């Protein structure tokens, strides 16, 4: 999990390293600890450390972890030669290691020789049938080959054994969302929320899925989960604030024909709208008028069809104004067309 403090620290270090200010090793450590995918930078700065004998020997036993990190980054950047060299060095250091065996299999994977990689993973699994990473690699390989149903099947089998692995649940959820199988995705997100109830991003993703599914009950639940996201982040998630507004308007439309007693108070929406306007005023004053008109049109329930589209987009950071604005653009255009 990357917290706000860690993100700022990472940005600072990244700037420093990119401008030649040193601190490459700290940067690589942080990237490794936060499990981020910065392959190009890891490759560049990791190699510069590894190629410098003085710096390399200063690392001590951490040297091997760096070799592994660089090898994987090189695979991701398709610099197969570099990766091969790194793996060779590791193999020399640890002739019997399973971990290096896994890297070798990953190299085969990156080369595209699927059958050989499969064989390598199977032999690794024979030695240790409960190796979680190898199981996951097999799923990833199915995905890489475009065999999504195979990947789903593999993941489901894997999750029957290792139910507590939330990374796998998340992967499964994302695959289901990509296939538009929202009911199954919702189940996965429920599992994730159960296992890590304090991560706001799962609440947000679950709410997105529920909103996309539609229907009065789902919309009401989505609204609740958007609200819990806001609760957990102190109102700093722009997406959740928009979600509240959209849900309220969608619920309002659905409940229009029915009995009016069930109608919820519009307080939550107006609060969310006020928070959004305040946030935009502070960070993107130029776009404020756009947001205000969009929110107003939402309040008068003009058009929700277009807005539905944005639930499909996934961008979960809290400062991507551009994405949100393209979403908002929808109803305005639609409104003018209808008039």
């Amino acid at each position, binding site marked *: 999990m990357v917290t*706000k403090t860690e993100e700022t620290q990472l940005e600072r270090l990244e700037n420093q390293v990119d401008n030649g200010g040193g601190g490459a090793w700290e940067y690589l450590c942080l990237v490794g600890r936060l499990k981020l995918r910065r392959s190009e930078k890891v490759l560049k700065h990791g190699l510069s450390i590894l190629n410098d004998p003085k710096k390399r020997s200063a690392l001590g036993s951490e040297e091997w972890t760096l070799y592994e990190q660089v090898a994987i980054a090189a695979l991701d950047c398709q610099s197969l030669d570099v990766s091969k060299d790194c793996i060779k060095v590791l193999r020399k250091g640890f002739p019997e290691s399973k971990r290096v065996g896994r890297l070798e299999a990953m190299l085969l994977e990156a080369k595209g020789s699927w059958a050989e990689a499969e064989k390598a993973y199977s032999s690794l699994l024979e030695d240790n049938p409960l190796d979680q990473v190898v199981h996951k690699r097999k799923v990833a390989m199915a995905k890489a080959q475009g065999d999504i149903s195979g990947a789903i099947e593999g993941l489901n089998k894997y999750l029957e054994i290792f139910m507590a692995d939330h990374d796998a649940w*998340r992967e499964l959820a994302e695959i289901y969302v990509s296939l538009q199988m929202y009911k199954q995705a919702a189940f996965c997100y429920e599992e994730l929320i159960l296992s890590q109830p304090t991560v706001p991003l799962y609440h947000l993703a679950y709410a997105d899925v529920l909103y996309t599914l539609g229907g009065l009950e789902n919309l009401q639940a989505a609204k609740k989960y958007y609200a819990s996201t806001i609760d957990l982040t102190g109102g700093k998630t722009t997406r959740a604030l928009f979600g509240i507004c959209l849900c309220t308007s969608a619920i309002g439309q659905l409940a229009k024909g029915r009995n009016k007693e069930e109608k919820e108070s519009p307080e939550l929406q107006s609060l969310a709208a006020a928070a959004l306007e305040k946030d935009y005023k502070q960070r993107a004053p130029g776009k404020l008028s756009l947001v205000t008109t969009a929110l107003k049109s939402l309040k008068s329930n003009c058009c929700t069809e277009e807005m539905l589209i944005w639930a499909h987009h996934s961008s979960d950071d809290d400062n991507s104004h551009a994405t949100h604005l393209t979403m908002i653009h929808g109803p305005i255009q639609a409104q003018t067309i209808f008039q």
Partner: protein
Amino acid sequence: MRLGFLVGVFGVVILAHAAISTIRYRGLLKIMEEEFYGPPANVMVELLLGLVLCMWAALTVPGKFLSIHPHSEENRIVSLPANLDFMIFNHRGKVFPVATDLKLKH
């Protein structure tokens, strides 16, 4: 930090002194054959002073407080880690290979 520690030690010493004073006072009372209703006022003041000093030291010496609010900067999760275990290599980055002069020299 150092100051806080010294203050803490001083607080404990004061507390110990207050305890000894009370024991002596009780001994005195026994000799005078009077009832013990509570320590004298100056010992009470000493006791309170010791308590305050110890408390202050205990709160400052071990380090800073960490936030428990889920929305504080240290705890607010802004992004999830990349799912590296499921990383695949035949992505669109394949078409744009990075600088080829990178090499492991040994």
